[in-house]
C-alpha cells in the first residue's frame, strides 16, 4: 500500500487548527488531550503506558512502526493512548522478534490514528499554544461536525483517571518466597516497575487505586510504592488519604510520577498543570545530593510547584531538571519516603536511574525488623 492509496483523515485541535492526513489504525473517530513525545525508540511502550490514558499522542520520530510490535514489550494489557498522530506510518516491519505489525495491533486494539501530518509544525504549534484537546477522524471529514464533538470533551485539568486504568482486583507479581514484600498502590502502573522490583527479589502485591491503607497494611508489607498514572493529582483525594496514612506508618515509601505528586500534595505542596508537559526519553536531571546527572524518561503533564517545595520545611529537593530547573525529586525529612517525577523504570528510555530501585530496596531491607531467634 503506498501512501497515496490510503484513506484521508482529519485532525482538529481545540483552537480550530485543522491538519489533513491519512488514516492509520482503525477507521473511526477519537478524542483526547493532544501531547507530543520526542523519543526515537519505544513507541509500543508509549502506546501501552497507562499514564497516557486518554491522550492523543504525537510522535515526533519521523517513522513509526518500523520494528513492529512484540507482545512482551507492553507496559500494560492494552493500548492506553486515545489516538496517534505521526508523520510516516509503517505497516511493514522487519524485526524477527516482533509478533505483529502496528496496523494489526491498532485494529485489534481499536486505535484510531492519523499519519502523513507535518508533525513538526504541529509540535511547534502545541509548544506555543500549550496543551489542548483534539479530535481525529477517518470516517467523518466534516470539520463543523467534528468541532461539535470536540466541544463535549472535558479538559484534563481536574480529571480523575486512575480509577479507570487501575487493576480491578488485587494481584501479585514476582516470587512469593522473595525476602521482601512490597505493597503497591496502582494508579496506572507501568509493568516495567513490577519487573524492576521482581529483578531485585521483591514480591509485590498490587492494590486497586481506591484501596485503603488499612487493607494494604493487613498484607504485611516491608514497604509501599505509589505508582504513576494519568489525570490530575489534585482530583485524587482518596489516594492522598492513603499516602498520608502510609507516611504515618513510617514504613519505607517510594513514589514515581503521579506517586511523586501525591507525596508532595501530602506535604502541602501544590501541583499544577504544565503549559507543556515533559514527554520523551532524553530529559536531563541532576541528582543534587550526589552531584550526578542522569538522562531520564519522562511523561507528565502536571508538576509540583517549585516555590512550594523550596519553602517547605518537611521535604528537601533531591533532583532537578537541567532544562527548566523544575523539581524532579524530593525526599521527606526524617522519613523513609522519597519520590521522583520521572520514570526510573524507563521502558522506553535510558536505564540511568535504575539505582533508585536499588536504594529503595536497601531502604526496605534496612528498615525490616531484625528477627531475634
Amino acid at each position, binding site marked *: 500500500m*503506498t501512501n*497515496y492509496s490510503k484513506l484521508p483523515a482529519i485532525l482538529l485541535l481545540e483552537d480550530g487548527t485543522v491538519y489533513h492526513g491519512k488514516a492509520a489504525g482503525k477507521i473511526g473517530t477519537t478524542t483526547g488531550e493532544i501531547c507530543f513525545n520526542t523519543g526515537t*525508540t519505544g513507541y509500543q511502550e508509549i502506546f501501552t503506558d497507562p499514564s497516557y490514558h486518554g491522550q492523543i499522542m504525537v510522535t515526533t*520520530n*519521523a517513522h513509526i512502526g518500523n520494528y513492529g510490535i512484540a507482545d512482551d514489550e507492553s507496559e500494560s494489557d492494552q493500548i492506553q493512548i486515545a489516538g496517534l498522530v505521526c508523520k510516516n506510518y509503517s505497516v511493514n516491519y522487519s*524485526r524477527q522478534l516482533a509478533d505483529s505489525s502496528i496496523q494489526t495491533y491498532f485494529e485489534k486494539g481499536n486505535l484510531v490514528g492519523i499519519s502523513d501530518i507535518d508533525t513538526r509544525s504541529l509540535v511547534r504549534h502545541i509548544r506555543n499554544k500549550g496543551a489542548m484537546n483534539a479530535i481525529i477522524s477517518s470516517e467523518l471529514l466534516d470539520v463543523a461536525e467534528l468541532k461539535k464533538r470536540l466541544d463535549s470533551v472535558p479538559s484534563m485539568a481536574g480529571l480523575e483517571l486512575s480509577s479507570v486504568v487501575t487493576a480491578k482486583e488485587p494481584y501479585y507479581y514476582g516470587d512469593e518466597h522473595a525476602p521482601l514484600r512490597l505493597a503497591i498502590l496502582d494508579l496506572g502502573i507501568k509493568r516495567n516497575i513490577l519487573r524492576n522490583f521482581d529483578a531485585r527479589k521483591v514480591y509485590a502485591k498490587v492494590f486497586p487505586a481506591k484501596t485503603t491503607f488499612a487493607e494494604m497494611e493487613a498484607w504485611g508489607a516491608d514497604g509501599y510504592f505509589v505508582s504513576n498514572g494519568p489525570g490530575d493529582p489534585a482530583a485524587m483525594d482518596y489516594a492522598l488519604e492513603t499516602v498520608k496514612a502510609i507516611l504515618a506508618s513510617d514504613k519505607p515509601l517510594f513514589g514515581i510520577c503521579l506517586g511523586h505528586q501525591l507525596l508532595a500534595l501530602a506535604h502541602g505542596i501544590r501541583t499544577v498543570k504544565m503549559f507543556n508537559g515533559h514527554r520523551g526519553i532524553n530529559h536531563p536531571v541532576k541528582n543534587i545530593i550526589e552531584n550526578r*546527572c542522569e538522562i531520564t524518561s519522562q511523561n507528565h503533564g502536571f508538576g509540583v510547584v517549585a516555590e512550594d517545595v523550596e519553602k517547605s520545611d518537611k521535604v528537601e529537593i533531591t533532583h532537578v531538571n537541567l532544562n527548566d530547573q523544575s523539581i524532579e525529586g524530593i525526599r521527606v525529612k526524617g522519613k523513609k519516603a522519597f519520590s521522583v517525577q520521572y520514570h526510573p523504570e524507563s521502558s*522506553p528510555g535510558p536505564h540511568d536511574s535504575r539505582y533508585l530501585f536499588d536504594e529503595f530496596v536497601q531502604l526496605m531491607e534496612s528498615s525490616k525488623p531484625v528477627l531475634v531467634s
Partner: protein
Amino acid sequence: MPRNTSINSVLIIGSGPIVIGQACEFDYSGSQAALSLKEEGIEVSIINSNPATIMTDNVIADHVYLLPLTCESIEQILQEQQIDAVLPTMGGQTALNLCIEASERGLWEKYNVQVIGVDVAAIEKTENREEFRKLMVDIGIGVAKSQIANSFLEGKEAAQQIGFPLVIRPSYTLGGTGGGFVHKKEEFEAALSRGLQASPTHEVLVEQAVLGWKEFELELLRDNADNVIIICTIENFDPMGVHTGDSITVAPGMTLSDRCYQEMRNQAIKMMRAIGNFAGGCNVQFSVNPENEDIIAIEINPRVSRSSALASKATGYPIAKIASKLAIGYNLDEIQNQITKTTSAYFEPTLDYVIVKVPRWNFAKFKGANRELGLQMKSVGEVMAIGRTFIEALQKACQSLETGRHGLGADGKQLRNLEEIMHSLEHPSSDRLFHIKDAFELGVPLESIRKATNIDKWFLTQIQELVTLETELRRYQLNNIPKDFFITLKQKGYSDTQIAWLLGNVSEDDVYNRRRELGIRRVYKMVDTCAAEFPAHTPYYYSTFEEENESVASDKKKIIVLGSGPNRIGQGIEFDYSCVHGLLAAKQAGYESIMVNCNPETVSTDFNMADKLYFEPVYWEHVREIIELEKPEGVIVQLGGQTALKMAELLESNGIKIIGTSFQNMDLAEDRGRFSDLLKSLDIPYPKYGVAESAEEALEVAKKVGYPVLVRPSYVLGGERMSIVINDDELETAVVKLLRNLPGNRVLIDHFLDRAEEAESDSICDGEDVHIIGMMEHIEPAGIHSGDSSAVLPPFSLSENVKRKMEEYTIKLAKALNVCGLLNIQFAIKDEKVYVIEANPRASRTVPFIAKAYDVPYVNIATKVMLGANKLKDFTIERKLKGYAIKEPIFSFDKFPDVDKQLGPEMKSTGEAIRFIKDLDDPFFREMYAKKSMYLSK
C-alpha cells in the same frame, strides 16, 4: 567542576594530509576544538602538515605550525611555546599515534604537558584486538568468538572451534593487509598461510565473521564527573562485512526496538568507562544478530571520528566543540545546548527527520583496484542528506553524489541485466544501492534481494515502494497528475528530472513549472537537536515537502556560496577552505552569507560558519529553490570547484547573478577552440591541438599536431580519463575507449610537450589590476597531473625571462577573460618558451597552499574583490615566506595494493602536505629533485 584554570595554553594535533579513512572531518573537529578553547580565553597552538585546512588559519589558532607530524616538530613547539596541555583526540589516529610516540619518548613529561581528552595508558586496550577482547570479556560485553594462532596447526584448530564464515586478521599489519573473510573450509588453508606470512610476528587472529548481522554506531560524550550521554545512534544500511566508512548509514536507528537499543546504550557506557578515566568523545561500534538480538561489541575509538563529524551534522550537537570544553574541566551540566541556548548540553539529541550518508568512491582513478567492499575502507568522500522520510533522504543523497544520477534510479541509467544485478547485490561495490532498485524494477522478489544483500527488510521495502509509485506515475501525463500524488512523489525524494524521465517527453523545467502551478514547493525545516520541543536559534536548515516553512528570508542583502560537494580525487578540502573564507569575507563585506553544501565532513557545513546553512544537495533543483526563497544579490560559484562552477550556465540562463567572472568568460576558458583563438590573438603560445569526434578524425588531428599527444574528453575533473600516447595504434585504442565510455563526448588532442617543465600561476583580478598571488614550479616534468606533482613556491629553477613571460601572460589573460576574482593558469616551458596549457577562472587547488605559505588571506581578498566591495589597491599585501615552500602530494595506494602506482596525466593523490625549506640545499628537496631525473629517463 568548572574549567581547569591551570590550563592556559593548549596544543591541538591535526591529522595531516587527506588519505582514505582520514579526511576533512578532522579539519572540522580541529577547527571546532580551537574555537571552543579560544572562547575560554585559552591560547591555542596547532600543528598540522596539511596546508589546505581551516584549522591552520590564523583566524582559528593563535600559533600555527605547518610542520611534519613528528616528535621533532612537537619538541620544537614545546620549546617555543609555553604549552600546558595537549589535545590529541581531534586529529584522528594520526594524532593519537603521535601523542603516544611523544609520550613514550617522555616529551610531555619533560615539558610538563598534560595530555587531555584521552587516557594514553588505555589506548592500547582499544588498539590491540586481543587486549580489547579480554577487556570486553572482563566487563561482561559480548564479542565475536576468536582465537590467536601462531602456527598453521593452531590456525586450523581455531577454525574448527569457531566455524565458518570467519575472518583472518594478521597481527601488526597496517590497514588489514593480508587479512580477509573466509566463507568456506576449502578456502581456509590458503588464506591462513597468506595471513601468517603477512604478519611480521607470524601471528593471526582467527575470528567469527558476523556477516549479515546488523551494524550500529553510537557517539558518546563523557565528562569528569563520569556523566555519559549518547549523542547519536547511527544504523548501517549495509550489514556487517562492509567497512562502516564504506557503508550507507542512517540516523536515528530505523529498525531498533527500545529494548535492544537501551541494552546497546548500557553496553556502550560500560565500555567507555572501562577504557580509562578521561573526559571527551568516543565512538563505539556494535553488531546485532537479527535472529535473537544478541549484541556484540566490534570496536571502540576514544576520540572524535568521521562518525562524530557526521553525528554533529546529523543532530546539531557539536561534539568536537563540547568535547574540548570537557577536556579542560567543564562538566556537561555546566554547558549550554549550543543550538537552543536555553537548555542544557547534558541531554541526548532527538531527531524528527532522517539523515542518510552515502559514501563517494573513485574507483575509476585506481585502475586495477579490487572494487568489492569489505574490511578495508575504499571510499574517498561522503555526502549526507536530510529528509522527513528515509527514502526522501536517500534520494537526496543520490542527488548529492554528483555521479550523474538524479536520485535512486528512474533516470535512464538503470542496469537491466539480471545476472549482473544479482552479482552486484552479492558482491557489494559502489553502485549496489542502485542495483537494489534495478532488481526490484525487474521484479526480483524482496526475499531474494534480502538473501543476496542481508540488508534489513525494512530498508528494502522502502525502496520497493518506489517501484510501485513509478508504475502509478506512468499512468499519468504531466498535466493530469493529481496534486496529492505529485506531493507524495516529491515527499519520497523524486527530483523533477526523475519525474520527467518517468513521464517521458517532458523536461525538468516542465515538471518544475507544473508543480509551481500546483503550488508544490519546498519548505525548510530546522535542525534543532530537540524535535521542536524547545525554540532554537541556529539557522541550520534542510528541505522537504510539508506545510510549514521555518526558514524566513531576511531583507538583508545576501550572498549564496555554493559548496564543493563530496570529497573526491581532484576536488577535496582545498575547495572547502575557499568556501569558508568566501563566507567569512562576504560577512565582513556586510552581506548575509548563505552556504549550500552536502558534505558532512567539512567546515563549511559547520552551522557556526555561515549566517545561514542549507544542508542540501548542490544539485540544480535544490539550489534554484533556495535562490527563489532567499533572493540573494548573487551566487559565488568560483570557490566550490567544478561542482559549483557546473551550475554557472543554469544560473546564467535563469537570470541569476553570478558573482565575479561571468559565465561567458568562464565558458570561453573551458572551450578549447575559442580559448585557443583567444591565445592566438593575444600572441600567447599554446601546444598545437585539435578536436575529434571519432577515431578517424583523431588520427588526422594527431598527424597535424604531431606525436606524442595528450588525449582527453572535454570537460573533465582531475584529469579523468586522460592519457598520453605516442603512435596511431595507441591513439586509436584510447579514443575508442573514451568514446565508448562517454558517448557523444568530444575528444581533445593536444600535442604533448615532452620533457617540458610545468609551472602555474594563481592571481586575482578586479577588472583593472591583476595581482599575482604566486607562481609555483613543478618538480616533475610535464605529463604528471598538477595535483600529483610536487611543486615549489616560488619557482626555483625557471629563468627570469620565463617568470616574466608567465607574469605577462597571466595579466594579459586575466584582462582578456575579464576575470573578476581568481584565475589559475597552467604553463609548460620548453626551451625557454612558455606555453599556456589551460586557464581556470576559479579558486584552484593551490590557492590555499599559497595563502598559507605567504601568510596572506588571498581568498578573503579575492571574495571582496569579486563582490565589488573592494579593489585590489585597497589591500596592502605582504608576503612572509622565507626560502621556499614545497607542496608534496600524498597518495592512498596502501588501500589499493593491486593498483598501478605510476603517475600520469590522471590525478591519483588524495591529499597534500606543506614543507618549508630555507634554501635549495635542503636534503628533503634534494631527494625530491633527484627523483625528477628518474621521471625524465622514463
